[in-house]
């Protein structure tokens, strides 16, 4: 088939219906070495998953800086940034692992029971 044949087969209005594919952002996560967590590396713009993977490979792997990549369409990421859900106004420090300050309570308990504070273990 020659290009002239191809051009003649299509009506002019078909031509107008051809749109350049929309680019959209894809998020790229990379693992630097085996056993490391996947960390967000950045993003690439691509029209589809196939090219997104190619571009992720080139932008985050061409210098052998990654052993694994995850490529995720940004539109598929569940985005949660509601302050009522993430930053409620009341104090929530008691939910943190280090939330309670135990020193005063421990001292009071020891005084009540007459126990001395245990010495730091040797060695």
């Amino acid at each position, binding site marked *: *088939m*020659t*290009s002239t044949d*191809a*051009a003649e087969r*299509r009506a002019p209005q*078909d*031509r107008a219906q*051809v749109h350049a594919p929309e*680019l959209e952002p894809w998020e790229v996560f990379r693992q630097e070495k085996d056993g490391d967590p996947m960390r967000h590396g950045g993003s*690439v*713009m*691509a029209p589809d998953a*196939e*090219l997104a993977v*190619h*571009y992720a*490979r*080139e*932008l985050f792997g*061409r210098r052998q800086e990654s052993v694994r990549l995850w490529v995720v369409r940004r539109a598929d990421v569940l985005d949660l940034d509601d302050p009522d859900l993430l930053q409620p106004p009341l104090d929530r420090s008691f939910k943190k692992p280090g939330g309670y300050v135990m020193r005063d309570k421990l001292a009071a308990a020891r005084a009540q029971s007459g126990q001395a504070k245990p010495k730091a273990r040797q060695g």
Partner: protein
Amino acid sequence: MTMTTLRPAIVAGLTDLIGTMADDEFVIGFSDSEWTGIAPLLEEDVAMSSLAQDELGHAAALYGLLADLTGSDADALAYDREPGAYRHARLLDHGRGDWAMTIARRYLYETADAVRLEALVDGSWAPLAELCRKLVREERYHLMHVGSWFGRLADTPGEPRDRLETALAVLAPDAGTVFTPLDGETGLIDAGILAASMSELETRWRSVIGPTFARHGLAIPPRTDRPARGRTDHGAPFDWLWGEFNTVRRSDPGAIW
């Protein structure tokens, strides 16, 4: 087989084979580097520049092997020849062209190069077989990348498809020139270095690309009608490219960069 035990006829055959492979990679690498800064989108710019660098890396490795084999210098082999002394395939002599031309050329070249490498990876001369096994691993990604683009241009009616067909029509007479017969190939086959003749490799290549062309309704390029000229008579586009890739080298001959 080590370098010291190679018969002179085998050395001549290897020089021919490795020299043509190196020139192919060198010229397509420099051609594709012409997209740096002007590719269709930023990500593709990085990708194509990186692919072009890969090809130049392959050329460097092949020229290095050739330099070891012939007691010469890889940079001198790459840069210090007149345009007429380069032995790359005429497929690579059409100038950068538009994006469709680049993709059409890369598709024809990468698929041909893959068939050629496959015929070398189990060869009896270890230095070349080992290098080719490494090249195959990188070329796998190159095939994926160019296959993606070839398919999307072929399947998108209108300008993308039209431009791809035009590019393929321009390249068609030179499409199979990667498989231009080499003077010493019979000796290389007898020595177990090369698995099959260039003519047989071209037949294999056609059976590889045939189904893809058929699926996209594209005409398979004919066999070249002047096989003896497959790696000569490079023409004006290569003269220009030669001037470009030699600019720095010739600016201060003999300098160590």
